[in-house]
């Protein structure tokens, strides 16, 4: 059943006092091509149902790229609503990791009751967003978003009681240094705190640190050129920039914020800094969504809405999704081929470049990070360390981690 969704097979191999890492993917990277021959509006309606894990980010990117290809103006309020919805989805996805995966790796029971609350709130919002005048439709408006504040409030309540153990604003103010962050972890009020404490106590703070650079912010033109080029299929499968794999995701977005920056200075971009990055992103996003503290994430948003010099009938969109930069590109058939209004224009080609392909590139951040682990520890410990690193970078598909 997971064959349709694809999976990642990550294999660790000890040899000569070193650790070799192989990452193989069966992800269905050609999936977006099923929209070729469908109308623009059918594509916008059905694409998020297919890519349903980050359906909001996918829908937002799809709407933006189709609007660009069709030359439709986007209302600034709609742009803002889309961003808020995608950020709420990012919090929901991070809470999955924090409530289900982090406890499991620590040997604790997952917080399924809390995650059920998160999904119930999110599901209600998603149902309302099916409104054909909603912000996730090309040319759409604000319809269906009235549940957003309540959904954010519910996610915030879960985060505060189950993850931070205190109000979000207090967590942000109280963890502004590496020492303060570790003091919060030592209190051990939540599974997330105990997970951080376990890493620190085991001397694993810097494990997985590696030198893969962050994916820099590009204007859409440069990405459009790569995606339109003859090597586009290989680029989508194993993306690089200037010949170098790149990282994109919560760590690259928060690495300049405290306590992440301090932890990087002390330990490199290993396990501890990555744990802090996920927590900090949840806190900052909730604050921005709910309290608007003005704290900022590093992201490409300034570029996202900028017009790209695409030829008519071509669109490209970049969205900061939960796991990193998500890129959509569409080419429409020439006007008249489909006949009638813009929504009936037919799609000639549709491409998606997902963050998992950057981060799980065979020489990317996960491969290099895992290769830096010590092969000298026992199997169970090595697999636990590797599992935590993989979870912190966070693939959007099932994966199998094995040691041979």
């Amino acid at each position, binding site marked *: *059943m*997971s064959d*349709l*969704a*694809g999976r990642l097979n990550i294999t660790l191999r000890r*040899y000569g006092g*070193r*650790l*070799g*890492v*192989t*990452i*193989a*993917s*069966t*992800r*269905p*990277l*050609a*999936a*977006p*091509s*099923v929209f070729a021959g469908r109308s623009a509006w059918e594509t916008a309606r*059905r694409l998020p*149902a*297919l*890519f*349903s*894990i*980050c359906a909001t980010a996918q829908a937002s990117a799809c709407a933006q790229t189709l609007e660009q290809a069709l030359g439709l103006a986007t209302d600034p309020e709609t742009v803002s609503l889309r961003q808020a919805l995608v950020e709420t989805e990012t919090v929901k996805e991070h809470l999955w990791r924090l409530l289900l995966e982090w406890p499991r790796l620590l040997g604790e029971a*997952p917080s*399924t*009751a809390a*995650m*059920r609350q998160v*999904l*119930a709130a999110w*599901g209600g919002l998603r149902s309302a967003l099916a409104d054909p005048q909603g912000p996730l439709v090309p040319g759409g408006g604000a319809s269906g978003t009235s549940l957003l504040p309540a959904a954010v409030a519910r996610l915030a309540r879960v985060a505060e009681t189950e993850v931070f153990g205190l109000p979000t604003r207090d967590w942000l103010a109280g963890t502004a240094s590496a020492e303060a962050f570790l003091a919060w972890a030592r209190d051990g009020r939540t599974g997330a705190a105990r997970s951080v404490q376990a890493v620190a106590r085991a001397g694993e703070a810097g494990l997985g640190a590696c030198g893969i650079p962050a994916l820099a912010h590009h204007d859409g033109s440069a990405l459009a050129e790569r995606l339109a080029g003859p090597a586009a*299929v*290989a680029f989508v*499968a*194993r993306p690089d920039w200037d010949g170098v794999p790149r990282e994109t995701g919560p760590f690259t977005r928060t690495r300049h914020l405290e306590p992440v920056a301090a932890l990087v200075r002390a330990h490199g971009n290993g396990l501890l800094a990555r744990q802090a990055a996920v927590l900090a992103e949840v806190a900052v996003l909730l604050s921005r969504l709910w309290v608007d503290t003005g704290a900022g994430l590093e992201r490409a948003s300034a570029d996202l809405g900028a017009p790209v010099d695409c030829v008519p009938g071509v669109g490209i969109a970049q969205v900061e999704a939960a796991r990193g930069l998500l890129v959509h590109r569409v080419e429409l058939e020439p006007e008249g081929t489909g006949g009638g209004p813009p929504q009936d224009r037919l799609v000639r080609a549709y491409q*998606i470049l*997902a963050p*998992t*392909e950057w981060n799980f*590139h*065979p*020489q990317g951040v996960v*491969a*290099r990070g*895992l*290769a830096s682990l010590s092969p000298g520890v026992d199997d169970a410990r090595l697999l636990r360390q590797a599992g935590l690193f993989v979870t912190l970078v966070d693939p*959007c*598909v*099932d994966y199998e981690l094995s040691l041979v």
Partner: protein
Amino acid sequence: MCLAIPARVVAMDPAADTATVALGTVTKAVSLALVEDVAVGDYVLVHVGYALSRISPEEADRTLALMAEVARCGDETTNPAGLGGEGAS
């Protein structure tokens, strides 16, 4: 590019809070810990061993039809990353 698969609930184990779901001839046990009010015959979206949400049979049919097209696309298109990485060391 992250797919959750629609599948039909064919049996439930309330004590374990799990269900057996079917997609074609393939069956699988999934956790029901994250969803409420699921019954035999319902369609649910499945991801990494959890049922995520209920969906209507019509929505499930539409998504499965699209996934069948994706599977045919996959047969015709090589995924270079699927051939196995050369690894890092």
